[in-house]
């Protein structure tokens, strides 16, 4: 065994247990996938191995020797290096400068650019990494910069390379290229840990797979064809997840949102971002908006919520014309889960309580004259945390410490508890893990069943097909089709999105 991690525990005081008695091992020259949902402990385990955090308990052996990995520098000395999701590169420097930074070839303190460039180039060639070492780093794509990080580790003679969700920001083609490079690295004797929750990729490239769930190791299996994605998913989640939602189609009620001839023209370019959009959402129905991204969905949401004024047309909510109201006035009717939860939906540095009471704070009982009632706020937040199963240390924890799924739950809890008649959901499950996604979808259906009107914008066609009662397809700022997901196939929606006839 190259590396053995034995009985690793990690406790964050006072009582959050991130890892419970986890065993993990690496053999020389393998690609070992580490899978699990967000918050399962994958990153924590790997941060322990790479010296970023220390375990509360347990031991680590490298080549049979018991070691203490106190810092990334110690890890590098032991031949362990990690490529994080957030790449730490200096954008204005050249690729080779980033690679050699910290152990630069030099003579009397003077850098030797030719020598550095040459060394890094040879390194890249030896390991089959296709990257221009003389390029300015910030001009590279994400995939390119990722290779620079890998080169940085290889330059430090790392034997064990930990890649933390490397394909998260890559296109399918870039992922393929990365996999080829991972195979080449394996051929040259490197050991790779592939942290991911994309099961198809994991099954495609790894030799062994370790599954974590809620801080516990479920299993380590050989990937020799005996295991399927469904089995892995079951191990990850613990219960069988049925991703298809059962829809009980009920007769729709009165119209809640009525949009007539809505147009938006970009002032500088004169381009029609929205072009005569008509749509209606009734009480007790979920209406989906499908479309290739950038075809007016964002603009539609912005106009509906009041961030942009339409050039022409009208918006009525529950019979009232809101076209000229400002966002705060409109929010009396609308609950809104924005696409960009980190910047628009949440104040990351504020506490969970503060995020939960926003908007609610305008009215009693939270507002007492010009002051906030802190004790009511705390009770209110605690109740939502419980009702919406937000996993956290309490209402005073900062939102930025939460996992993506729990952050989204904070937004959803706040918005749903506003109890508005119309709910706008913009990409509500983007970037969430399986369980959080399912949770969100259940919430959507519950809203529908309580006679709310839901408008759902999503890039996930399966999600739209599963949840919506009707689907509008947008293309070039226009509604080009209105479809019933029970009678049409997903591919038909796709044809309309792309503008090719079925």
């Amino acid at each position: 065994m190259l590396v053995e991690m034995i009985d690793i525990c990690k406790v964050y005081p006072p009582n959050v247990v991130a890892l419970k008695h986890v065993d993990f091992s690496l053999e020389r020259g393998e690609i070992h996938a580490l899978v699990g949902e967000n918050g399962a402990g994958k990153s924590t385990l790997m941060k322990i191995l790479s010296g970023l955090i220390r375990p509360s308990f347990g031991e680590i052996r490298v080549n049979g020797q018991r070691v203490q990995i106190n810092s990334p520098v110690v890890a590098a000395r032991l031949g362990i290096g990690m490529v994080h999701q957030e790449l730490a590169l200096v954008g204005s420097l050249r690729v080779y400068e980033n690679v050699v930074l910290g152990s630069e070839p030099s003579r009397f303190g003077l850098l030797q650019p030719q020598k550095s460039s040459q060394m890094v180039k040879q390194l890249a060639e030896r390991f089959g990494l296709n990257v221009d070492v003389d390029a300015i780093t910030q001009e590279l794509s994400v995939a390119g910069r990722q290779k620079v990080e890998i080169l940085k580790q290889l330059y430090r003679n790392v034997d064990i390379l930990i890649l933390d969700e490397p394909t998260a920001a890559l296109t399918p083609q870039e992922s393929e290229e990365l996999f080829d490079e991972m195979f080449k690295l394996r051929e040259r004797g490197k050991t790779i840990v592939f942290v991911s929750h994309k099961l198809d990729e994991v099954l495609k490239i790894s030799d062994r797979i370790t599954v974590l769930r809620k801080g516990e190791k479920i299993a380590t299996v050989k990937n020799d064809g005996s295991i399927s994605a469904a089995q892995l998913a079951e191990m990850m989640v613990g219960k069988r997840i049925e991703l298809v939602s059962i829809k009980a189609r009920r007769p729709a009620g009165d119209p809640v949102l009525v949009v007539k001839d809505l147009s938006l023209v970009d002032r500088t370019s004169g381009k029609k971002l929205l072009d005569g959009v008509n749509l209606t959402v009734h009480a007790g129905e979920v209406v989906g908006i499908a479309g290739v991204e950038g075809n007016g969905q964002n603009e539609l949401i912005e106009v509906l919520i009041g961030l942009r004024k339409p050039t022409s047309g009208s918006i009525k909510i529950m019979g009232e014309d809101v076209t000229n109201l400002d966002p705060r006035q409109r929010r009396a009717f609308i609950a809104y889960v924005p696409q960009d939860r980190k910047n628009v939906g949440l104040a990351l540095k504020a506490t969970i309580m503060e995020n939960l009471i926003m908007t609610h704070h305008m009215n009693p009982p939270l507002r007492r004259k010009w002051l906030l009632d802190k004790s009511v706020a705390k009770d209110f937040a605690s109740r939502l945390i419980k009702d919406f199963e937000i996993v956290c240390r309490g209402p005073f924890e900062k939102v930025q410490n939460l996992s993506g799924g729990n952050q989204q739950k904070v937004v959803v809890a706040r918005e749903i508890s506003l109890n508005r008649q119309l709910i706008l959901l913009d990409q509500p499950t983007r970037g969430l893990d399986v369980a959080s996604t399912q949770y969100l979808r259940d919430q959507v259906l519950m809203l529908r069943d309580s006679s709310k009107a839901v408008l759902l914008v999503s890039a996930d066609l399966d999600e739209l097909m599963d949840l919506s009662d009707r689907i509008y397809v947008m293309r070039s700022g226009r509604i080009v089709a209105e479809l019933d997901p029970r009678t049409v196939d997903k591919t038909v929606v796709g044809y309309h999105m792309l503008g090719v006839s079925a």
Partner: protein
Amino acid sequence: MGAIVVQLLHAALSSATPIALAALGGMFSYHANVFNIAMEGMMLMGAYYAVYGAYRFGHWLYGVLFALLSGLILAGIFSLLAIVLKVDEFITGIGINMLALGWTTYSLRATFQVKGAFISQTIPPIPRVRLPVVEKIPFLGAVLSSHPFLVFVAVLAAFVCHVVLYQTKFGLRLRATGEEPAAVASVGLSIGRLKFWSAVLCGIFSALAGVYLSLGYVTLFSENMSNGRGWISLAIIILVRGRPVPIMLMSLAFGLLENLGMLLQRYDVPPQFTAMLPYVATLFVLYSYARRLKTS
């Protein structure tokens, strides 16, 4: 006319020197992403201790030595507060600037028993150098010759700083620290240490600027004699985004404007207006610079 131009350029080079030296020092902090505004105070302290050392021990070298020590001590205070204890850099800088002003004013009275300024024939100035060959060149010789040697140190320093910043390990790491500290920390380098060295360099260069003021430009110390030069150097650093050679050129432009103002006084332009010239020019440069950024 020719004589006036020669005089103007000669004086411009002289006025530019303290600004350039301070700016070159502050440049290191700029690249380490430390918002260091303490050049003003470090310069003033340097000017005082240059006079103190030179007068007390009878040689200008002691002046330089004392000035450098004072610069290092202020750099140490700055590092302790802003880098180790992580106090706001701006507040720390203001504190240092005010400390320097108060300390030098007080020391002037306590040590030399004078108010306002200390002038003495026995303060040894730093030597002026005559350039043997250049001197003979008609126009250039008159502009360049018989300056205190620190003028040439400043010009040379601009090029040396360029090499240090762009061609040495230290420079590479410093720039990396300023732009992406995580990258530097991830390879096991200490960000705090790099920032500390940038503060030390700032202290050394600013103190030299002070030496030039009190033992080169003139041979005396007067209260608040740095008179905003540290702030101008900060403006220059930000304006040229910390590139050493442009720092030198911008300092020269300032020196030129300052002396142009004095020249205009001879032609009955009120001194209140001529003294504004460098600052009006700064605002104009900032305006056109910002406009250019906006349109591009």
